[in-house]
């Protein structure tokens, strides 16, 4: 399906260390951040997917990702590199990056 990354311009990964995992509030922060980029952005729990649209709050929340999971990001578009860097930073900051950053 063309909506999945076939040859993404940027990929990155990091461990999810947030206690409680990717629950409601972290999912919202992640989705809001992903939506700031024009690139298509995906999140996956392995480097080969399956990939989930990181801009969809319903789908990101539905992953119910527990703590100590590796998160993989892939992006495709002009600001793809910035997008994956920002998302990794958000996760590594334990979601303390304010939404006003």
């Amino acid at each position: 399906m063309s909506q999945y990354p076939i040859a993404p311009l940027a990929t990155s990964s990091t461990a999810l260390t947030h206690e409680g995992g990717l629950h409601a509030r972290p999912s919202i922060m992640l989705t809001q951040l992903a939506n700031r980029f024009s690139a298509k952005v995906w999140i996956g729990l392995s480097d080969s997917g399956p990939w989930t649209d990181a801009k969809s709050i319903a789908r990101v929340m539905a992953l119910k990702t527990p703590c100590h999971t590796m998160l993989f990001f892939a992006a495709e578009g002009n600001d793809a590199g910035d997008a994956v860097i920002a998302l990794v930073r958000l996760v590594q900051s334990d979601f303390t990056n304010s939404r006003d950053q």
Partner: protein
Amino acid sequence: MNRNVGIVIVSHSPDVAKGAADMVRQMVGKEVPLAWCGGNPDGGLGTSVDAIEKALQTAWSDRGVVIMVDMGGAETNSEMAIERLPDKKRAKVVVCNAPIVEGSVMAATESSGGSPLEKVRRAAEELYPRM
């Protein structure tokens, strides 16, 4: 003019409506125009067309407004409140078919990124197919 789609939360219970609105404010933020109403004019459970009309004014955005409802009269009264709007505004209001709490948070998350009305509605309804 607000650049984000507004959200109106309509429940039979003012506590439920206010609670859902609190969740939106605390989890999503303040970038989204938001209003809630619930209860009938006598202080009991119910919904009121007048109150919904007022809430629509409070949360109004030229990008549109989504209304989140709990059940029955909340939906029909919301539709009556929409009917009272001038033609131009009427086309910019939709009632979402989604659970009131989860749908409100998801709609607000989508709206906070500047998404258009139809996308905000889809975000709220995404995991809940029409019954």
